[in-house]
């Protein structure tokens, strides 16, 4: 589903990703962890070209997006993304947020898009909020709407950038529950997260990034039980 080879990203003189390679198979859930500033967000954003990779290749959902001729908009339709700060469209209702892109981008009819949107809202437990505006929702509710909005495009995989970091503690669980449910349904997911419990329980594999390098990679049992590198050990000591 994803194949990254020698991915490099620089901002001016600052090299943020220093040659990252990894493979992700369909249906896998990958947790990306690492200290602040290690390049986790940048890595994720290179996967749907919100950042333009400086070097290396990224193949994802059947598109070689580092190829100049790649249809990047078509690729993005297959790649759902959930942001730390939700980025819901504030001037549209919850239903409007869910139906806008399917209608505009995929040409679905209003009826089709709304039917699907209501099913998704039910799935994330927000059926009664269809006609509300984002400003009236709690953080946890906003993030669940954001997940539903991404799913409304019926993507092949989902990227999450610290989806619970901006939430009050009591709202973290409701969002993680939705994500667990999604993982169980077989969705391919890349999740940048500080929730070690979630990584341990749900991820098939953990990627540990430090200073722009993929320092360690393994199953949660391997990584959390017996980290191979000093840097991973130091990091885990601090966060666990």
């Amino acid at each position, binding site marked *: 589903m994803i194949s990254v080879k020698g991915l490099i990203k620089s901002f001016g003189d600052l090299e943020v990703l220093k040659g990252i390679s990894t493979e992700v198979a369909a249906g896998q859930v990958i947790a990306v962890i690492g200290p602040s500033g290690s390049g986790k967000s940048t890595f994720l954003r290179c996967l749907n070209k919100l950042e333009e990779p400086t070097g290396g290749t990224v193949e994802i959902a059947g598109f070689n997006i580092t190829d100049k001729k790649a249809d990047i*908009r078509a690729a993005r*339709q297959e790649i759902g993304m959930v*942001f730390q700060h939700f*980025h819901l469209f504030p001037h549209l209702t919850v239903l409007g947020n869910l139906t*806008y892109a399917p209608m*505009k*981008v995929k040409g679905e009819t209003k009826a089709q898009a709304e039917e699907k949107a209501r099913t998704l809202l039910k799935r994330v437990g927000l059926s009664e909020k269809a006609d509300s*505006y984002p400003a*009236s929702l709690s953080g946890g509710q906003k993030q669940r709407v954001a997940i539903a909005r*991404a799913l409304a495009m019926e993507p092949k995989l989902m990227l999450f950038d610290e989806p619970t970091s901006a939430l009050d503690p009591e709202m973290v669980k409701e969002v993680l529950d939705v994500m667990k449910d999604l993982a169980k349904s077989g969705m391919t997911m890349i999740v940048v997260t500080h929730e070690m419990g979630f990584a341990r329980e749900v991820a098939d594999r953990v990627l540990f990034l430090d200073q722009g390098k993929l320092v360690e990679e393994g199953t949660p049992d391997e990584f959390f039980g017996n980290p191979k590198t000093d840097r991973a050990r130091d990091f885990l000591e601090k966060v666990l």
Partner: protein
Amino acid sequence: MNLDFTQMTPYIPYMLEGIWVTLKFVAVALLIGALIGTILALFKISGPAPLRAFAVAYTSIFRGTPLILQLMLIYFAVPQLTGYDITPFLSAITAFGLNSAAYISEIIRAGIQAVDKGQVEAAQALGVPYRAMMKDIILPQAFKNILPALMNEVITLTKESALVSTIGYLDLMRRAQVVGASMYRQFEPLLFVGLIYWVLVMILTLIGRKIERRLKASDIR
């Protein structure tokens, strides 16, 4: 002090007519300004480098020189250079239109750029094309930033419009001078139109506040 407003009575309808002349002129100038201003703003935000440079230079020149100079240049230079005898009205709307285009382009640019960058990223991540994103996601949100600032521009324009009296365009201000000259009393007619300007600006301010309040309310919904 010997103020005597009674002498002025026969001239009042003549001066009141100036309200429409001024408002008509402001409206036309504003329309031109908004049209060119929008185009300039789009150049600045997403135009190719030469167009962006043009828009930036344009704004810099029109904001960096006195409006009265621009007005004079157009009124006097056009006939001198082209032989076309430009009317006061035409030079006035041209100068004010071109000038307010510079200010309005900045208002629109700032309004668009004040929209959270996350909105663009969210739209891009969903595969929304650029034009649709601008039209459906960014501009509706930018509009809320733009409208209050635009109201201020309307108020400024209304007051500054008095400058056109210098080229003999018969607006409110000019009419006060004409009346003053014919009754050998300047003070009363000037006070009179001063009051009219103030009332006009107050009305515009109230409308602006109402719009702002409505926009705020729709934010919370």
